[in-house]
């Protein structure tokens, strides 16, 4: 078996194990979705039920909910493996460290997507999103969600490894995570808002730079992750 094939197999193994763990512990998935629902209910009361109908607030609220969901997910990224001793087992073998990281990132992207799809329905209902907005968002939203998940998932996976041995992990994760992913959040909100036909954009506002940020951040952090994977995953 070639090195590339072995790498792919290892990556798939980590991904499959993570998916199976979630499937066995459905409460974790349902709990995250319930958390997202609580936030979706909370925001209209925080901003005011009338103000939340405004296009800018509506989009901002959706991505802010996603943000908290990602933070919750990445904070628990290696919990199952650590509790079961599987991570130590992986690390004691010849499994390529970057394959573990990629497997985990792939898992985060799909896991978040599985939360975001029902969340999207809640958002449409609770925030009275008009049909024409949904139509115009249609082609943008899915790539936006995937890139958002990829970016935040990559940063989250990196930070989950960095803070693994810290005694103040619960403080450090948000302290590092929120500033580092701010450009992705900003880009996602801006691109979603630009797609909304109800908003008149100011002259000179281009969505190209936001797409660059959406694409560039995951690439940048993936590169850092691969280069440092041996340091990130130490026994």
């Amino acid at each position, binding site marked *: 078996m070639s090195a590339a094939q072995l790498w792919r197999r290892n990556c798939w193994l980590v991904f499959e194990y993570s998916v199976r763990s979630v499937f066995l512990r459905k409460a974790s998935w349902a709990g995250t979705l319930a958390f997202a629902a609580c936030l979706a209910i909370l925001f209209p009361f925080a901003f005011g039920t009338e103000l939340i109908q405004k296009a800018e607030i509506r989009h901002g609220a959706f991505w802010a909910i996603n943000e908290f969901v990602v933070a919750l997910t990445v904070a628990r990224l290696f919990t199952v493996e650590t509790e079961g001793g599987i991570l130590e087992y992986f690390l004691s073998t010849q499994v390529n460290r970057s394959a573990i990281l990629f497997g985990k990132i792939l898992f985060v992207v799909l896991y978040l997507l599985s939360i975001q799809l029902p969340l999207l329905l809640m958002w449409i209902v609770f925030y009275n999103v008009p049909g024409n907005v949904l139509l115009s968002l249609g082609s943008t939203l899915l790539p936006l969600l995937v890139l958002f998940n990829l970016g935040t998932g990559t940063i989250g996976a990196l930070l989950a490894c960095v*803070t693994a*041995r810290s005694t*103040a992990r619960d403080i450090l994760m948000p302290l*590092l995570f929120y*500033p580092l992913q701010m*450009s992705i959040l*900003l880009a996602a909100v801006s691109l979603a808002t630009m797609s909304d036909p109800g908003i008149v954009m*100011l002259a000179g506002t281009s969505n190209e730079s936001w797409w660059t940020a959406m694409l560039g951040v995951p690439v940048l952090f993936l590169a850092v992750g691969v280069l440092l994977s041996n*340091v*990130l995953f130490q026994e």
Partner: protein
Amino acid sequence: MPQAHRDKTFSLWAKILYPAIFIQLVGWYLGLFWIGADKDQGEVFRIMFVHVPVAWCAFVWILAAAVFAIIGFVRKSVFEQMDQNTHAAIDLGTVFGALALATGSIWGRPTWGVWWDWDPRLTTTLVMFLICCAYHVLRSFTPDVQARRNAGQIVAILAAVNVPIVYFSVNIWRSVHQPQTFVRKGGSASPDIGLVLLVNTLAMLLLSFVIFKIRRVAVATEETLEAAREGRNQA
């Protein structure tokens, strides 16, 4: 590094500190009294001779921290020394980052009418500063020395990833912050302003280098003291 050598280094750089402060004072004198008032901003623009140099120092020391971290990962024989360098460099990056934010805010009040604006340059600088703060929290709450060094070095690299984003943010996004006046072609600043700014930037870089050398000795001494305390507790 033996303690006697550390003491010698400390004494040497402590002596150089006074001429460095003097050069900086000369630079500020030129900025305050030698240069005439700006035709648009009046006397307020003089804060530029503090704001721009401290912002540059923040960039330089955060980038230097990442360079030290990368050298440490590549050359394991100097890993410990490079970690101490990274620590001292991030200390300076944090202080200069805070000063850049504070002086920028003071400059912003009379020119923009607000202390703070959610402008890309300001926001990305704040993000950079927060990551530096997170570095210190991470070091404080990671008891295992090797894990602390590894995690610290990775966060230093992540902090540096943000520096080009801060620098080019005024070009990429629409911003209230002025673009690079002296770097770009056709900048409107007069040569004498450019000269005084250059003197102040070089003086601040020199001063920050001297502080770095002193802080570097202090970091090494702190670590020796910590190791001695741990040894005593174990005994």
